[in-house]
């Protein structure tokens, strides 16, 4: 899947489903600090990734994911 498509899909569900402020969406945005996602939201991120991309993440996948860019990169790797 094209990198831009991945980014667009992720941004879309963050805004539509997670109700993240559109203005806060930026590659350097911290998932916890800027987008204010908490531990329960990470469970729902697994659900959103599975329904949008058909891959299942596990908790360990998020160990080094701090920013939105890290998240995009993780999904790119999982889909490659």
């Amino acid at each position, binding site marked *: 899947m094209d990198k831009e498509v991945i980014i667009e899909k992720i941004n879309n569900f963050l805004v539509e489903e997670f*109700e993240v402020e559109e203005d806060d969406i930026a590659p350097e945005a911290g998932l916890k600090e800027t987008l204010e996602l908490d531990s329960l939201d990470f*469970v729902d991120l*697994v*659900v959103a990734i*599975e329904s949008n991309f058909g891959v299942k993440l596990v908790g360990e996948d998020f160990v080094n994911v701090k920013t939105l860019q890290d998240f995009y990169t993780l999904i790119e790797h999982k889909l490659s």
Partner: protein
Amino acid sequence: MTKRVVITGMGIYSCIGENINKVKESLYNGTSGIVVDQERIAFGYRSPLTGMVPKPNLKKALSRRQRISMGEESEYAYMATIEALESANMSQEFIDKHDVGILYGNDSTAKSVIESNDKIREKQDTTLVGSGAIFQGMNSSVTMNLSTIFKLTGINFTVSAACASGSHAIGMAYQLIKSGLQDYVICGGAQEINKLAMGSFDGLGVFSTNTNNPQEASRPFDMGRDGLVPSGGAATLILESYEAAVKRGAPILGEVIGYGFSSNGEHISTPNVNGPSRAMKMALEQANIPANTIDYVNAHATSTPVGDANEAKAIFEVFGENGPYVSSTKSMTGHECWMAGASEVIYSLIMMKSGFIAPNINLKQPDEAASKLNLVSKTLEKKIDVFLSNSFGFGGTNSALIIKNI
């Protein structure tokens, strides 16, 4: 030294109205909220009759995190609680500075539990059910959601006592405030309305099948009754100590003066006469008033042949000849189950504050036991100073509350 306990706010989300004003109108006009739910026919129900409320749209009021933990019973309870807090003039700022508690009646979250397990079965993966499912599925869902939404710091638990849940929740709140352990308690009852919640109850064959005339199906005390009609929604009351209410200048709607309870100790579903009678007598003793002080009894009567007759006998045993006016508002609302004990206190409070007694609609010919009661079948202009509200449930749990005008 015990404290006096008063009601300072009420809110409701019911099939006869989604707020106090609409409900007042329906009660006065004897309007039924019963409809046919086509989904239930295809699902295998014996009876598709039910009370129905619209799904609240909470998108603007609550965040995603708050909403995804709420099943429908919590959504209804939120709507009722917002109205109750407003009517009590209790702001979030006040709540933030005081230990406000919550005791709410609820006894099922069937839809949430079934749908989340269906998803796990489909995905064969528990994570993919999402983070809200656990909080929607627990029986204490209503209290865990409302306590976090309103940032409550007092008592916090759910009361599960079948169709007396809402009434016992008020009774428990009354006891806590009376004993001085709490000054403010949000209490009430919630009941989900969906085909997944009531199928096994329908299976007992106790629901009315009068589908030709849905609004005439619920007919408590009438000879022609053929069963109850399930219903739901939510009802919230704000209880406070009299001193606390006066101190903050709260509107006082009534005073809880008695709470009686009992268990039948017999059959799991068939009610008896003795248990309800003992609960009513205990409530009168607690209130320290003679039986003839009661102006109105809001009966539990659900429109089942045995239940109504046994309650009629119990009421007659307690109050005797020339007893108080009696009606069952379930004739209009259907049986609001876990919510009923709280909603019926609100229905009665509305009548008390407005000077009328709502009719027991569809009452054409009372049966033998009911014919000894002073039943109200047409709206009656009448000042109520004190009323008693009965609630009984499976397992033989009984609750009777006495409320006085103030």
